[in-house]
Each structure stands twice: as structure tokens, then as C-alpha cells.
């Protein structure tokens, strides 16, 4: 009896360890291929190079155009998701009554659950034509349209995590503020938001990480032309879209071209993993503050 109990516990523990194995697997696969890539391409050329043309006859492996493309789309997405997400969180947490909140939250969950390929369709075939009417000369593939749509996709994440953080702020703080004659807006912006600051920041960082790693919207609507630019109306290429572009073809294993997607993936993994760690640390902190 006791032996069976012991075996069960270790079996369950083994399953839990599989998650660690996944992380190690990701790191090992990315490291092996990236190391092989860096044997042929110097690190400095990769990280600081300003031309990305690995599929050309005279290939160049400067990753900066992919990085700026990724950042450009992410910044646009954040300009949409952060202010709108925070405002809707304030509304749901501080103004809305229970009934409205219970109606709106599932709808926001639906928005977050729509497959990203659907958002890609929406960006390319609805938002881009709409924007082209306002901005003449904007090309069919651009950073603006997928950026806006991505912001819309990430908004529910920002809203729901920020709302959780704000609802964790003790009632007494709000009541103290009202007693001093503050309005709801003053209480929200000067008491609740600052008190929930680390939780809200954690939500923002997680949102940035999500934007950087988002793939299908940009693969469909941002183009496949890596270029070093801050112009949101011309075609660009993000790191994720490049991986998709190469994967669509039949790239033989062991070629330099095959390894580029792992090297780009490595950068992507380092960036998002770092952001996720910071976000997890911040969330831990706000939990302790009011526990």
C-alpha cells in the first residue's frame, strides 16, 4: 500500500518535471542550431547588420531590419492596447455594476479567443482597405494595419489583468479618498491605479511580450520585405513572419537558410522570456503587497 502511494507520487512528479524538460528542449534545440549558424556568420554581423537577405545569391545576415519591423508593429499595437485596455479596466473595476461586468467580460474573452489567423484576415481585407482610403499611397502590406488589429487582440489581456490588479486594491483606500472629497475619476487615477501599479505594469509587459511573439497577423498583413524603416505605411517583415516565410518553402535540414529561423527564434525567445520573467516577478510583488 505504502509502496503504491510512493510510486504514484513519483509518477506525478515525473509529469510535473516534463514542463522543465520542455524549457530545456527549447533551449537545447535553439542553441544547437544557433551555434551552427554563428560558426558561419559572425555574431556582430548578425546582431548589428542592417541588411537581411538570406535567400539571395549574395546573402546578408543582419537581423536589425527584422527587429525594427517587430518593434514597429509592437509599438503600434501597444499604442492601441495599453490606453484602451487600461480605460476599459478602470471602467469595469470602478464604474460598472456587477451585471454589466458579467455581460462584458465573457465577450472580451471571446475577443481574446479568436484565432489569430482570423485577425490576419481582418487586417488584410478590412482594415487595410479602410486605411488606404484615409492615407492614399499606403501599400497593401504595411505595419499600421496589423499593428492596430494586434492591439485589438491584446486589449482583453491588458484589460483583464489590470482589472484584477485594481480589484485587489483594498476598499479602505478608495473610501479614504472619497472621504477627502475626491471624485471617482480622481480616486481611480490617483489612488487605485498607483496602488495597483506593479500589477498593471506586469500586464503591460506581458502584452508587449505577446505582441513581439504574435505571428499570423503580421505574416498575413505586414509583408515579407525586411527593411530598416519607421514608416508604418510600407511593407516590412517581422522576426516571426520571417520564420513563417521560410517554413512555407521546403528548406533542407543543415543548410544555413534552415538555421536562420532558429537563430531568429533564439532572439525572439530571449526577448520574450526576459519580459515574461519581469512580469511574473512584478505580479508576485503586488500579491504580497495586499495579501
Amino acid at each position, binding site marked *: *500500500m505504502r509502496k*503504491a*502511494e510512493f510510486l504514484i*507520487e513519483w*509518477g*506525478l*512528479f515525473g*509529469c*510535473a*518535471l*516534463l*514542463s522543465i524538460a*520542455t*524549457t530545456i*528542449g*527549447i533551449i537545447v534545440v*535553439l542553441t544547437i*542550431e544557433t551555434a551552427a549558424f554563428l560558426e558561419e556568420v559572425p555574431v556582430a554581423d548578425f546582431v548589428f547588420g542592417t541588411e537581411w537577405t538570406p535567400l539571395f545569391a549574395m546573402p546578408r545576415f543582419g537581423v536589425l531590419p527584422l527587429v525594427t519591423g517587430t518593434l514597429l508593429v509592437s509599438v503600434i499595437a501597444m499604442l492601441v492596447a495599453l490606453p*484602451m485596455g487600461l480605460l476599459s479596466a*478602470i*471602467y469595469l473595476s470602478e464604474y460598472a455594476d456587477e451585471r454589466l461586468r458579467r455581460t*462584458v467580460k465573457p*465577450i472580451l*474573452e*471571446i*475577443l481574446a*479567443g479568436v*484565432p*489569430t*489567423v*482570423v485577425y*490576419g*484576415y481582418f487586417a488584410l*481585407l*478590412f482594415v487595410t482597405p479602410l486605411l488606404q482610403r484615409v492615407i492614399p499611397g499606403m501599400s497593401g502590406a504595411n505595419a499600421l494595419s496589423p499593428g492596430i488589429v494586434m492591439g*485589438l487582440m491584446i486589449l482583453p489581456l491588458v484589460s483583464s489583468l489590470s482589472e484584477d490588479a485594481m480589484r485587489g486594491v483594498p476598499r479602505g483606500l478608495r473610501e479614504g479618498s472619497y472621504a477627502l472629497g475626491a*471624485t*471617482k*475619476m*480622481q480616486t481611480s487615477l490617483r489612488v487605485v491605479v498607483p496602488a495597483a501599479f506593479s500589477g498593471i505594469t506586469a500586464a503591460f509587459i*506581458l502584452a508587449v*511580450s505577446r505582441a*513581439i*511573439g*504574435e*505571428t*499570423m497577423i503580421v*505574416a498575413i498583413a505586414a509583408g515579407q520585405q525586411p527593411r530598416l524603416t519607421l514608416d508604418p505605411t510600407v511593407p516590412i517583415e517581422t522576426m516571426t513572419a520571417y*520564420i513563417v516565410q521560410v*517554413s512555407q518553402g*521546403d528548406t533542407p535540414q543543415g543548410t544555413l537558410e534552415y538555421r536562420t*529561423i*532558429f537563430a531568429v*527564434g533564439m532572439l*525572439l*525567445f530571449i526577448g*520574450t*522570456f526576459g519580459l*515574461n*520573467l519581469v512580469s511574473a516577478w512584478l505580479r508576485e510583488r503586488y500579491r504580497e503587497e495586499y495579501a
Partner: protein
Amino acid sequence: MSAAVASGMARRRGADTAFQALALLVLVVTLGALATLIWDIVADGGGTLSWSFLTSFSSRRASQAGIWHALTGSIFVVLVTAVLAVPVGVAAAIYLEEYGGRSLTARIIELNITNLAAVPSIIYGLLGLGLFVRTMGMGRSVLAGGATLALLALPVVILSTREALRAVPKSLREGSYALGATKWQTIWHQVLPVAAPGILTGLILALSRAIGETAPLITIGAFAFVTFAPDSIWSPFTVLPIQIFNWVSRPQVEFHANAAAAILVLVTLLLSLNAAAIWLRDRYQKGGIS
């Protein structure tokens, strides 16, 4: 009250009303965007949707193309994902919630899972390509696709299962121990039956997310022009989201209508799964467990 105070008060009240209106407007715009998205896709794809669209295979002619191969591919892949991810994920969650406690190992595993849940899905695609497709020699098969999505779904399954286990009252466990049951007997006979609806809800949501995934499967090489339904776990395959991506990427407008119709099928499938999950959750909450 002096005139100055009164006018200050009026100004602050005005600002408050304006702020509330702005916040409400943001919410309305967001919901409006969702409505526009749905309307756009119904308008584009509603006309194309038909029985023959569901039951036909892919074709180079838009008017004859259907999604049968992609629909069966999606179902096949998600079944493999479920078989691989569900037992392991639930077991890991049981360990962390019931056995792990606050030990250092458990905390490291926990932090790791939270992090994995936020790793971009395309990274899992690279892992699947390097590990399953190449190193383990599974090729671009249903098995490789299902295994890749299983790794992706695992953190979500663990997190939601833990939440369901946490909702089971402590007194239930203590009652069981008091009657002389062992830890595993308590978990198997008392905790799991009570937590089952909650666990199931989380599983449905995790798997419906896997059905909507595109990028990791493209990365393991599932983009090839597959025109047949898979018949074993070693078959090459395509899935609905990849078929949609394929059609959206083509310049011809007729294929865009096909993409919209396929989106309607995909979204209907996911919404019914979500509705089932929400129904389960509501029933469970009314059951008076928590």
C-alpha cells in the same frame, strides 16, 4: 460653501462625467470592433458556405474547393494533442497542488510553467521541428503536429486544472483522512470527482486554443499542398487555420471568400466548444461546491 469651492466641485464633477463617458466609449468601440469583425466575415463568406464546401477537398479552382481534408486534419491533430497533453497535464497539476506544497522544486516548476504559458507559439513550432520532425524522425505527420500542440497546451492544462483542484474545499480532504484514507485514495475518490467539471472546462478551453493555432504547425512544415484527409497518425496533414492562411495569401478574390467561409466554420466550432465550457462552469458553480 463658498463660491470658489462650489465652482471647483462642479468642475471636478464635470471632469468625472467626461472621464466616465470616455472609458465607456472605449468599451463600446472595443465591442463594436468585435461586431465589425464578425459582420465582415459573415458578409464575405456567408454566400460560399454550403454542404459541398464542407465535404469537398481542396482544389485549384476556388468554386470547387472545400475544407473536408482540413476539418478532418484539425480533428485528428487535436485528438492526438488531447491524448498526449491531458493525462500528463492533469497529473502534473495534481502533483503541484496536492503534493508539491511550497518546496523549492515545486516553486521552480510553477514559475517555469507560468513562463512557458507566455512563450510565443512559434517557438514551440521550432521545438517541434527540431525535436519531433527531425531528431525523432516523425516527419511532417499528424503525430508530430499533435505532439507539438501538446507541448503548447500543457502549461494551459496544468494552470487550469490547478485552479479547479484549488476550488475543492479542504474539509473534504480532511474528512477523508479522518476516515483513514491514504493521500491517493483521497485524491482519486474525493477530490477528482468534485473537481471534474472544473477540470473539464479548462481542458475544453485549452484544446479549443490548440485548434485555432496556425504558426507552430506551419513551422513544422504542415504548409504543403495536402488534398486528402489523414488516415493514420503518420499521414501528412493540413488543418483549418493553415487552409485559411493559404487562401488569404492568394491574390484572387474568390479564394478570399473561401477563406471567410472556412473562418465561419472554425469560429463556429470554437464558439460551440467555448459555450459548452461556460455551460459546464455555470452548472458547477450552481452546484454549490465553492
